[in-house]
């Protein structure tokens, strides 16, 4: 695949765990690809699957929804709902042609700076392999 393709990835990061995790990765100078556009949300449970669909429609090549590990949610059950919503949304998106590899839902705690960079790097490579999606492409 063209390696010079710089994927645009939208990341919904929950402010209690994955956002501080990303901060930690930054402050401890861990390198991870710049393809991520971060949107801070109060909880991964706040991420309406329509946000993901809208992100793809507006031209994202990949979307990440990162929350606290199940059981650690600051609001107790946000990520439990995320599991249900996105296990379903994943299959629906794949069914209409947005490949499964373009959506990642994962858990990163505030102390896992290294793991965040790892997740970001892996997912960027995965999206890079899939090539550009660019929602508007569906129009051309």
């Amino acid at each position, binding site marked *: 695949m063209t390696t010079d393709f710089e994927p645009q990835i939208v990341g919904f990061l929950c402010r209690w765990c994955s956002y501080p995790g990303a901060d930690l990765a930054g402050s401890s100078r861990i390198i991870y690809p710049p393809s991520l556009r971060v949107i801070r949300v109060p909880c991964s449970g706040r991420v309406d699957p329509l946000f993901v669909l809208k992100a793809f429609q507006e031209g994202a090549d990949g979307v990440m929804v990162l929350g606290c590990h199940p059981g650690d949610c600051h609001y107790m059950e946000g990520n*439990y709902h995320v599991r249900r919503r996105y296990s379903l949304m994943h299959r629906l998106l794949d069914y209409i042609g947005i490949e499964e590899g373009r959506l990642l839902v994962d858990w990163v705690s505030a102390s896992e700076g290294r793991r965040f960079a790892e997740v970001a790097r892996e997912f960027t490579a995965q999206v890079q392999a899939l090539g550009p999606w660019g929602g508007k492409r569906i129009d051309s």
Partner: protein
Amino acid sequence: MIAEIRAKARELLENGQVRCFIGYEEGTRGRVRPAFVYEPQDVDRLIWDERCTHNLAVYLHQFQHPLKRGEEPPRVGILVKPCDSRSLNVLLHEKQIERERLYVIGLTCNGVRVNGQPQERCQRCSERVPLVYNLVMGDVPKTIGREDYADVARLERMSPAERLAFWTQEFDRCIRCYACRQACPACYCFECVAEQLDPPWMGIAMDLSQKQFFHVMRAYHLAGRCSGCGACEEACPMEIPLSLLNRKIAKEVEALFEYRAGQDVETPPPLATFKKEEELPL
């Protein structure tokens, strides 16, 4: 069967148990259409045969408000086939309608026909007796269908690029007339995402990405709520295979959460609840 339906409807209207009886009547050009009978002497307009495909539960929303100001919301009689009864269960489960204001006549069903063609969804249908009713009519059909989601599987076997091409071509034909949404009993939002200005989810343009967003959004919003009644597909003027979308959701909801829409009014809906220890493929 039609004689008993008419007799019961006349009785309900005469003793004032219902203000209006919703059924089917002969339309023009050999077509059948929903009928609204307010007077006992008009019950003879009611008919019942294989052409009665419409899901009448969609009309219950308009009877939630009093017909005249100051009156009680009207009590209504309604005919339901098994798939319509599932829609009714969804509406009852979501507290949209009070059960005691409905007199439900359930009709066993051997499958309906559109323009004389038997419907695939009926050949696959395993519930031939309605799930909710005050009174049930008709003998239980022997032939029971089996749900195998073959049509959905055919699409799943395609590659993502092929599926994208398939849906792009289908959504391209959509003219955003919203007949699918308006015919669907589960779509009763006061202001649909498609028309919301704040946040502006969608624009007014008739371009492909807007139409794709609308149909995928609507399919997702039917998770655990679509009773598979086929009203959307039969209303679509552009003959877009919408049930392929909704049945994929129904199949996944059943596989992931063992939940089928409209079975009862107690089991918590799949996306409104969770099990802490459940493992779900993300």
